[in-house]
């Protein structure tokens, strides 16, 4: 049977859920806003959701901790329920699916066959490659073989989180299981890396809805990350940036600067070398983000961040100024030689700081 013929479009399903045209249009407008898109694209979104069947998605779990799935269900706009019931058809996900055992594996094989070339493969975690892949097996098969088999007929692959995108914690030195990210194991398929430990919930649902809406994959940087979410450094958009520029830093935990929310650079903050949306979208529907709650960014969306520590040691060089820098232009500047201008900028802020006399706040009783 033709997959297109038997599948209702997102709007069909919404309509049958009692969603009227007006609410549907409002939903599309909000979605455009959430994606940071101009109102002129709303008709395009409407058209997409009216005519397309729900996108089949197979969500595999390899070596991982399931934080990506947990993050995904924290999404506020859209909420996970809408994604799973109205936008995609989450046909395999061992964390959430009702079926188990061979019935679960039958689901995966059926989608691979019935929707060959049409389904999206979402991968959470990565594959151990040492010793024939025995460090992760599902249904008696290695995760490595399952990953390769399922990717073969996928339309595209989404690598959720740092495990799938760049290896994350089990690939930290000495990487005992030979864990490798998806892009080192799968070739010939478009792969979208959505790093972060985990990625922000609305980034995850944003990537999915972008694909659903526009029918194309988002524009990617040279690390395979969607530019729309990983195009700028946390530091460049951080609300504590003015304190950095003013030379006002937290010097020890819980000090006066910490109570005033000053810059965490000296406590090891990786914001200056981390490309992510934390300081714009923030976490859990905008409640806060690590720096906003007083802890330095540990750079969890960057390659090899586990081996770029210790976390509380300050970065030796900060790529500044130039807030328009992108990962493609800056590249590995942090690991490379310090920019002269950076040093100069930093010295100047230090000098400025030493000339300022900050009155210590008296904590109210």
């Amino acid at each position: 049977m033709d997959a297109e013929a038997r599948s209702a479009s997102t709007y069909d399903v919404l309509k049958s859920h009692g969603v009227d045209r007006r609410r549907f249009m409002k939903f599309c407008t909000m979605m455009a806003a959430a994606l940071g898109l101009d109102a002129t694209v709303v008709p395009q979104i409407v058209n997409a959701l009216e005519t397309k069947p729900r996108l089949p998605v197979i969500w595999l779990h390899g070596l991982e901790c399931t934080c990506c799935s947990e993050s995904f269900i924290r999404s506020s706009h859209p909420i996970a329920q809408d994604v799973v019931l109205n936008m995609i058809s989450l046909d395999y996900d061992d964390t959430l699916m009702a079926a188990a055992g061979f019935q679960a594996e039958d689901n995966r094989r059926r989608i691979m066959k019935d929707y060959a070339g049409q389904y999206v493969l979402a991968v959470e975690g990565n594959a151990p490659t040492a010793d024939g892949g025995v460090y992760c097996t599902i249904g008696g098969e290695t995760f490595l073989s399952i990953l390769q088999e399922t990717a073969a007929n996928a339309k595209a692959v989404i690598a959720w989180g740092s495990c799938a995108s760049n290896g994350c914690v089990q690939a930290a030195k000495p990487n005992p299981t030979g864990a490798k990210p998806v892009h080192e194991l799968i070739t010939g398929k478009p792969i979208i890396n959505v790093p972060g430990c985990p990625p922000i919930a609305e980034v995850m649902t944003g990537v999915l809805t972008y694909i659903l809406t526009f029918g194309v994959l988002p524009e990617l940087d040279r690390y395979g990350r969607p530019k729309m979410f990983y195009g700028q450094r946390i530091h460049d958009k951080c609300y504590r940036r003015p304190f950095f520029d003013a030379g006002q830093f937290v010097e020890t935990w819980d000090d006066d600067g910490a109570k005033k929310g000053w810059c965490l650079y000296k406590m090891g903050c990786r914001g200056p070398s981390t490309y992510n949306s934390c300081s714009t979208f923030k976490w859990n529907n905008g409640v806060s983000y690590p720096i906003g709650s007083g802890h330095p960014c540990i750079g969890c969306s960057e390659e090899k961040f586990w081996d770029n520590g210790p976390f509380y040691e300050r970065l030796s060089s900060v790529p500044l100024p130039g807030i328009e820098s992108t990962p493609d232009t800056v590249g590995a500047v942090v690991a490379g030689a310090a920019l002269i201008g950076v040093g100069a900028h930093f010295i100047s802020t230090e000098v400025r700081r030493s000339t300022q006399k900050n009155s210590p706040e008296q904590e109210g009783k």
Partner: protein
Amino acid sequence: MATRVVVDPVTRIEGHLRVEAMLDEHGVIKDAMSSGTMWRGLEVILKGRDPRDAWAFTERICGVCTTVHALASVRAVENALSVKVPPNAEIIRNIMFLTQQVQDHVIHFYHLHALDWVDIVSALKADPAATAALAQKVSPSWPLASVGYFKDLATTLTKFVQSGQLGLFQNAYWGHPAYKLPPEANLMAVAHYLEALKWQKEIIKIHTIFGGKNPHPNYLVGGMASAISMQGDNAINMERLNYIKTLIQDAMAVVEQMYIPDLLAVASFYPEWAAIGGGLGNYMAYGDVPENGIADVTKFRMPRGVILNKNLSDVQPLDLADANQVQEEVAHSWYEYPEGKDSLHPWDGVTVPKYSGPKPPYQQLDENAKYSWLKSPRWKGNSMEVGPLSRMLVGFASGSTEHKDVVMEALGALKVPATALFSTLGRTAARGLETKLCVHWLMAEYDKLIANLKAGDSAVADTSRWEPSSWPADAKGYGFTEAPRGALCHWIHIKDTKIENYQIVVPSTWNASPKDAKGQHGAYESALLNTPMADPKRPLEILRTIHSFDPCLACASHVFGPNGEKLAEITVR
């Protein structure tokens, strides 16, 4: 003729678990094997790193029970370095801990466990008016209970099924004879499945406020990084505190008006499960929610202790530093121990992984050989069950009136004797009852924080031992907590300011462990014995009991190795 039932993957859990059950000619389980099929190597990775970073690494053991490993880790380092965190930090950690328990238990009930008892397809036949009447009877004060509400949901479900794309609900055991709920109860449960899914992202914002994000909020050795300033808008202040209070109040409504009534309603249809799945009868809790510092184990809201052979009149003390109490064995695990060693305390633990299972792809494992990536932890040689049931029983048996009250109330409502607790149903019920206690403790801890702030104390971190130059050259410590799934402990050895050895024994390793050298089953295996199965091809009964433990295999199957030796030698047989 004996039948072997293999369930792999066991879904609706965290991580990768395989269960094999051997049935007799009557379809009753006579032997069972629980196999962790994943191994990640975290303890090897930790060796040589800064102990202050360990919480971030270990937190990534698990993103479902996120925070618990971070908490155990900072406590282990603080224990080794003799750091006492300020009262506010302890209260904030208690608040984050209790938030995790409440959120995780609700997710487990509705999203990981409910579909073992709730038949979604049967819900299609429900009458919306009758469902509304049922919902209003089960929980008179829960607002989402109108006829129109359930009518909309029934329409949604019907159209979803008619779309032909069943997604997560495809190919499950719908229509299985072991499903007993009437259609209306099933429809109500589906409604609450969706409501709980919306709510879980709210309560967890408490983590975001103190820890900056969830999953994986930030912790700090010595206290917390989230400074408090009641006179500013750039730290924890009145607005943030009000936010937390509102979230706790909402959580109370969800737990008391939705979760507990649903739990009791569903349980009332499955009385036979109060006599199935009991298992070991040995229960252990390390305890948590300190009221007077982590060192004072007598002042825990969740008491510590060990119960053997269901003997509630004797709660035995336990000592995590005693080399003769918690030990790990590898008789049926894919690891090797040094010559002459059968069991080792975590501080002395070694790991040489050695896979000797069948070469993938394989059809079955051999119960007489090694068959799991999990070791077999034992307490004084005994297999133990850990988790909410153990905690509730230890609390009950220790004489805590709070524990007694909620347990007796539930037993009364279900009209079952106390022995019903030793079962699959008892395990599932205990989790709900614990959630009720936790949500009240959450508010109590919030009140304590406010009281402490009123008294003029706003400190959140002790930095006296932050600099490695202040540390002893050699130090050992341990840090424990009660993860949602049970007793968790990290053991650390710090040498010359670096991690020399790091050992973790997690709840699902206790529960999902393979047999030991004496042939004693682990808790899952033991709980499956003597379970009658209606249809071995659709092993719903196995899922019910395994899910009642809330398995977390990423936790269980990290690694136990300290020495970073040559890691694996594969023998394919």
